[in-house]
């Protein structure tokens, strides 16, 4: 049973590179928190500071009601699963699992029972007498998860545990880990998880909440739905969602309607957008997800005109790459709504879904279209 609290955490590496810039994050007891962000944004650094493998330059980490800043990794009540498994190469799977308990000098029968139980849960019982090099990647990762599980830690830490597996296996391991988390929670065991990944599918499907990071700072912490629908800044908007949100530079002017000038066209939005705005004008980025652009019927007004540069047929949907002026847009159309005859001479007209557009301040990246009454 433990809550993880991080306060103003900072990390400066020995080469005086500042990797983490005073982040604060609360992970509730039993919560599955995903840290996600592009490569080099200090996800691993943060996780390793929680584990105690990296010294803390500033700030405070609390697990349960203990400040763990100066505790050795083994005393923090955490387990960690590494990207390349990090199984002890000279020990059989059985000893790999039991190593932590042996160090704690637990009685032998207890260790054996615990090993059996964990092996059962993860379906690795037939592998107990093998060496790590005799395991496939997926099996090795299951053993690594088992080694974390057996210690019944307060907090589980995962550092990109699935990135060495192929796509199919990754999907099944994803389900396995979330199932395991639910089960621990149901059984009343401690199941606080911090899970690092750079794969947004993993982040969106596994996380109770997601913490999006960039360059050692937290950009937003929210549940997947909020993150997708109400990104607080242009970075989160662009990072979450696939294909990426279209971000178009424009100039905002509110006078009665909401007008945004994009290159040589002006888009006008109605009340829905107007009510959400907390600024009245300025240089902005207009954000529209590819799924929220539809092909306009002939007589519809207020559409973006563009030129289709190429088309990808993906099966259930069609990706259109459209150039509006010198802005490249991606549009995703469900296959059944895609009619080639809508595109004449490569010209296409697109209408953004008003309830789903976002407007970001171009300088700060802040989402200015999130006002409360939206």
């Amino acid at each position: 049973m433990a809550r993880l609290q991080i306060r103003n955490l900072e990390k400066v590496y020995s080469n005086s590179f500042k990797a983490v810039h005073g982040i604060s994050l609360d992970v509730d007891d039993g919560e599955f928190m995903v840290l996600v962000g592009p490569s080099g944004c200090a996800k691993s650094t943060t996780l390793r500071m929680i584990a105690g493998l990296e010294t803390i330059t500033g700030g405070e980490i609390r697990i349960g009601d203990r400040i763990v800043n100066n505790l050795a990794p083994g005393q923090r009540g955490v387990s960690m699963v590494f990207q390349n498994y990090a199984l002890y190469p000279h020990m059989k799977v059985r000893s790999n699992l039991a190593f932590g308990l042996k160090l704690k000098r637990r009685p032998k029968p207890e260790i054996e029972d615990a090993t059996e139980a964990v092996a059962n849960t993860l379906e690795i019982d037939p592998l107990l007498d093998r060496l790590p090099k005799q395991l496939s990647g997926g099996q090795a990762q299951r053993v690594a998860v088992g080694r974390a599980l057996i210690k019944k830690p307060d907090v589980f830490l995962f550092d990109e545990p699935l990135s060495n597996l192929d796509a199919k296996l990754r999907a099944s391991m994803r389900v396995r880990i979330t199932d395991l988390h639910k089960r621990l929670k149901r059984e009343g065991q401690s199941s606080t998880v911090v899970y690092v990944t750079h794969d947004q599918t993993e982040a969106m499907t596994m996380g109770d909440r997601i913490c999006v990071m960039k360059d050692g700072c937290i950009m937003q912490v929210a549940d997947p739905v909020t993150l997708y629908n109400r990104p607080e800044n242009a970075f989160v908007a662009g990072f979450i969602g696939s294909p990426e949100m279209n971000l178009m530079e424009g100039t905002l002017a509110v006078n009665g309607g909401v007008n945004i000038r994009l290159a040589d066209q002006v888009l006008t939005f109605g009340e829905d957008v107007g009510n959400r705005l907390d600024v009245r004008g300025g240089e902005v980025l207009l954000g529209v997800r590819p799924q929220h652009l539809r092909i306009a019927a002939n007589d519809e007004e207020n559409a973006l005109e563009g030129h289709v540069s190429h088309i990808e047929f993906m099966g259930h949907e069609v990706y259109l790459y459209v150039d509006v002026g010198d802005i490249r847009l991606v549009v995703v159309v469900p296959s059944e709504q895609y009619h080639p005859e809508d595109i004449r001479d490569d010209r296409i007209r697109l209408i953004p879904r008003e309830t789903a557009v976002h407007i970001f301040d171009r300088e700060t990246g802040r989402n200015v279209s999130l006002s409360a009454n939206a």
Partner: protein
Amino acid sequence: MAEEITVRTTAELDSARTLAEGRRMHAISSAVRYALLAGVGFLMLYPLIWLIGASFKTNSEIFANPGFIPSEPTLNGYIDGWRTSTPYTFATFFWNTFLIILPKTIGTAISCAAVAYGFARFEFPGKRILFATLIATLLLPNVVTRIPQYLLFRDLGWLDSFLPLWVPSAFAGDAFFVFMLIQFLRAIPRDMEEAARVDGANTLQTLIYIVVPMLAPALISVCLFQFIWTMNDFLGPLIYLSSVDKYPISLALKLSIDTTEAFQWNRILAMSVLALVPALTVFFLAQKYFIEGISTGGVKG
């Protein structure tokens, strides 16, 4: 058969012919290669073979008969050689060698592993300078330190004991081994050690339970090198040991040259053969690890 042949086209026959020719060429070239290798190998091994052969000859035959097969094989060399001209038999000298080698090898393994672990895995003040010093001692000719070392051990009152032979090695004095282990450790990812720390192991436990087993191939090489080099070391015991009852084999062999007015070559050769036996046995027993240790720089993933 006959039918088959008639069905074959000339082209096929041609290709079959070139194929057979190719195969014959291949056979000839490998025969030449193996003959060459065997010849050179024999040349290299000849002194050893001659040594073994000569150890069964009588003293007079050694110089009369240049071949290596003794005309009248005799064990006299072994029997007399073993007795020696001193009050001690060779058994004493073997035992002394053993007494020098065992603590020295164990001390080397433990101290070098610990020091290499420290250098390879920890940041501490002065690390760069200390490491540079280590490498510098590696480049320093051994002879340079002989005299200061001798004076040091004399002042400590350690002369004519095994201590000067044991102690430097027990404090990782063999920079080469430390360096070799550091290189080996650098090639091993740190994840396993970090996993062990998260599992609750302290530094020493990580070293013993995780690092040493992963270092095993390299450590075995270190022990073997130390074993063989100590076995063959002549200068060290010569400088520090003065009483005959403490002599190791390397000195004892020389002893038989000194004390007899006419050299009993057959005895010396016989004892040399015996002196080779332990090193060769250990080498062949540990060959697998030895080669693994010096050829691979780490564990496979």
